[in-house]
């Protein structure tokens, strides 16, 4: 069942390429806006790079959160998901995983390229990609809770970001912190392990909470 949900969502993503590309281009545009605003001065950009890339990743993955459940809600497939013998949390985990693949992985692959734009040293780029790889699934998982809660509400898209951004802050801190630590030469594994811990915790709790929110929204 878990596989079917992912297969279906990836099939949908392939059929509707624009969603994937929109998220990616949004990420690229936001990241390349900063040098224009702050000036091309290299070592200033270098210190800003982790923060900018991470905030852009946060916003980009939140862009498509609103649509995670709303399409299914409108055409009735979400009801069928609630009525499937498989537990709803597994299905929500599948949805979040599919959302991560569609809007998380492209960002992770693009991040090093944009890092070069900010003249980041090579190992900082590696740490940045690693941190993003660990962090973006958490964004999709916690985002799933926000998307489920604001299902079918007018102005739901904006409300999701208001609900979910405060919960992203620890990931933002440790994600950007890992890259800064690496650039400053201090050990960054503490940051990555904390993000990993956060990932495991949200893997366990987020699907359950999102399933509960779906039941509340569809009552």
């Amino acid at each position, binding site marked *: 069942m878990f596989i079917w949900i992912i297969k279906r969502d990836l099939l949908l993503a392939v059929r509707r390429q624009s969603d994937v590309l929109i998220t990616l281009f949004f990420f690229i545009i936001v990241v390349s806006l900063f040098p224009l605003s702050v000036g091309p001065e290299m070592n200033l950009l270098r210190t800003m790079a982790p923060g900018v890339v991470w905030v852009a990743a946060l916003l980009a993955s939140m862009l498509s959160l609103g649509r995670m459940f709303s399409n299914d809600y409108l055409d009735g497939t979400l009801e069928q998901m609630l009525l499937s013998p498989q537990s709803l949390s597994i299905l929500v985990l599948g949805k979040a995983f599919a959302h991560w693949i569609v809007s998380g992985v492209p960002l992770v692959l693009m991040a090093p390229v944009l890092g070069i734009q900010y003249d980041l040293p090579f190992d900082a780029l590696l740490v940045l990609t690693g941190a993003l790889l660990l962090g973006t699934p958490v964004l999709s998982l916690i985002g799933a809770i926000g998307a489920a*809660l604001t299902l079918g509400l007018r102005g739901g898209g904006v409300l999701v970001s208001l609900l979910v951004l405060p919960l992203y802050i620890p990931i933002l801190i440790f994600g950007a912190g890992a890259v800064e630590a690496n650039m400053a030469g201090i050990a960054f594994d503490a940051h990555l392990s904390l993000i990993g811990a956060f990932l495991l915790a949200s893997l366990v709790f987020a699907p359950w909470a999102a399933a509960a929110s779906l039941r509340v929204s569809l009552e």
Partner: protein
Amino acid sequence: MAINWFKYSSPASFYTLAGKMIPIFVIAAVIFLVAGLYIGFFVAPTDFQQGEAYRIIFIHVPAAWMSMFLYVVMAFWAAIGLAFNTRLSSMFATAIAPTGAMFTFLALWTGALWGKPMWGTWWVWDARLTSELILFFLYIGFMSLQAAIDDPRRADKAGAIIAIVGVVNIPIIYFSVQWWNTLHQGASVSINQAPAMASTMLTGMLVMVLASWMYSIAVILKRVRVIILERESHSAWVTELQKKGAV
């Protein structure tokens, strides 16, 4: 006599009970407030380090504690409402949120005004002030989610879930901000180096905390009564109350 707590769990009987309790808390709040202010301004000595400006702690610290405490109480009532499907506890959670948000705003405002004379800037990225700001966002998120949903039942449950997720995240956010603060600034400056507390200062502050407790309970009870009326307007007991003119 055994108090049958469940008697008060129905909105109808709780409405009248709350009506009787509000004056008690209002009086208590006023008494503690006057006592606290008197101690704060007239008994507590001037601080050798910060001069008179430190007197702001008499409202900054109670506001900060109340904002944190009220969020936890709100999450508690929201969880009870979600688990036992009791409408009254969800109404309580909805009633607590605005007061909690107000205290968070006050904590931020007084924190900024205290920071200006001490460090020359209105806003200090201190760990506690920053987590207070994030707490403010959590309150706003909770209230806007509840405002966006028309059906009160769904609003209560959705609010409960975001409150529980929020309360689970508060310690995480607090420690990550704390950690982030020490990483960047190296704890040179932070509010939690409270000045050596003379006993009168401490008592002044504690009395002010009691005053803010009494005030919050009174205000929240008052708001719960209004929410009960709003949601129970169709039920019969409200119309009798209306006839008796005791609304």
